[in-house]
């Protein structure tokens, strides 16, 4: 498909070389460099103006490394758990209350088996819909406190109850959002693709596994990365339940050591340094998994 790439525009002089480098690295890489440079220049300017204590910054910025690992780790584990739960939930939502082979006429299985299956599908659909609406309609901050209090009253003696509560709060929240991402993805798979798979005798579950899932996943790569970024930023509220992640460290440095501006500027740069490379990763993932004619061009 190389022949279909648009020809590179020819621009003369130094700008042309910069452009070539940009194209090679990819726009996201350049965006990362520019954003981080701008942030650093901004911090230095504040330092020259006497607002920021650069010496203090230099001595303390490394203390955000460990908390950054906790933020990224918790977000990723919660995201992965959410992913596993959201795929079946999104599938239920995509197929509707009478989906997955629920039929008006009795076919194949015995009447009892069919009835039980239809009831399960319909019940699953209603529960999934209620869950998604409930979780998307309330602030994650409120959800976190509910989970937190339920957790500490249920396991009062468990040493890691805070961490568990934080993990559960993030997971329960991201499931709802990811389920909607998957629903949209599954519903975007063309009916003709499903007809074709059924016409060679595949069962509904096979059609889902071999057609709807692989095609739907490719369509939702970008919104899924968006959801990871949202969740990562939302994980900052876990500082309220004393999980020692990025925001907790910023509060500590700001309040206890008396340098709030330095602390919050540093933490902002840490968040940026993690979120921006992700868009690069997304482009790479999309390019690697791209199949001619499926989904959208990445614009590069």
């Amino acid at each position, binding site marked *: *498909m190389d022949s279909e790439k648009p020809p590179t525009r020819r621009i003369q002089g130094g700008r042309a070389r910069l452009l070539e480098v940009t194209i090679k690295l990819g726009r996201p890489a350049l965006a990362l460099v520019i954003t981080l440079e701008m942030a650093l220049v901004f911090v230095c300017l504040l330092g020259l103006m006497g607002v920021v204590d650069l010496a203090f910054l230099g001595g303390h910025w490394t203390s955000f490394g460990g908390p950054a690992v906790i933020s990224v780790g918790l977000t990723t584990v919660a995201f992965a758990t959410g992913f596993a739960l959201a795929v079946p939930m999104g599938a239920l939502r995509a197929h509707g209350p009478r989906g997955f082979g629920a*039929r008006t*006429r*009795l*076919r*194949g299985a015995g009447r009892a088996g069919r009835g039980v299956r239809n009831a399960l599908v319909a019940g699953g659909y209603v529960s999934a819909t209620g869950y998604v609406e409930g979780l998307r309609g309330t602030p994650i901050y409120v959800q976190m406190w509910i989970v937190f209090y339920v957790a500490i009253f249920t396991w009062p003696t468990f040493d890691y109850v805070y961490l568990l509560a934080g993990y559960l709060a993030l997971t329960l929240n991201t499931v709802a959002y990811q389920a909607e991402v998957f629903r949209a993805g599954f519903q975007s798979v063309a009916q*003709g*693709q499903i*007809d*074709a*798979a*059924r*016409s*060679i*005798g*595949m*069962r509904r579950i*096979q059609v889902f596994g*071999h*057609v709807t899932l*692989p*095609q739907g996943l*490719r369509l939702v790569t970008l919104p899924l990365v968006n959801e990871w970024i949202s969740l990562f930023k939302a994980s900052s509220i876990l500082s309220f339940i004393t999980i020692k992640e990025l925001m907790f460290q910023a509060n500590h440095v700001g309040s206890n050591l008396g340098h709030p501006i330095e602390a919050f500027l540093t933490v902002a740069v840490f968040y940026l340094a993690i979120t921006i490379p992700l868009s690069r990763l997304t482009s790479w993932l999309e390019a690697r998994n791209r*199949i*001619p*004619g*499926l989904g959208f061009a990445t614009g590069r």
Partner: protein
Amino acid sequence: MIRIRGLHKSFGELHVLRGIDLDVSQGEVSCIVGPSGSGKSTLLRCINLLIEPDRGDIFLEEVRITDPQIRPEWVRQQVGMVFQSFNLLTHLTALRNVTLGLTKVKGMEAAAARDKAIFELERVGLAHKVDAYPAQLSGGQQQRVAIARALAMDPKVMLFDEPTSALDPEYIREVLDVMTTLANEGMTMIVVSHEMGFARNVADDVVLIDEGVVVERGPPEDIFDRPTHERTRAFMSKILR
């Protein structure tokens, strides 16, 4: 081979099939023509149960496939289908499009499925395109892969739903050639198409459907040159110039 009796299908208020009777014998090519909206595609989709009929019966080799105890997946293994818009799975190569049914539905070993798929792709003249994705193939090539995919399942009957309507004129020939070869090899075929050349030269039987019923059926020369019904005459005068 196929016997249809009193087939009815409605979509809400729209009564599409209003009592279709149709017989297709072993090795016969039956060409279904009729105005758009007359129910031709719905009829084909009923035969492999992609659409479940409301009333009436369909028999495939004396098996009543409209029986609720019959698994639709079993029926679809016996009945190959080729779609107007090809419907190749866009995320799989030509080869994988053909092997998917062999491995997942027929339970064949990967190597055997591959051999079988390559054989079928050779039959439609596309052995050199096994690793191409559908988007890298022309319309005519895609439709030939779709035919190979259906043939690989060793169907007893092949259904063609306007297989050349979505093709550019230069690709129609190659698809019709494959279909003609298939007919000469003795495949039982039900073809919805307005390719009058194909119907005249290849079909054993032409069936005119209008408003959900069979208006007239007979050998192509009778239907095209000496239609007995006024509606057949009106339809033929529109498509034959």
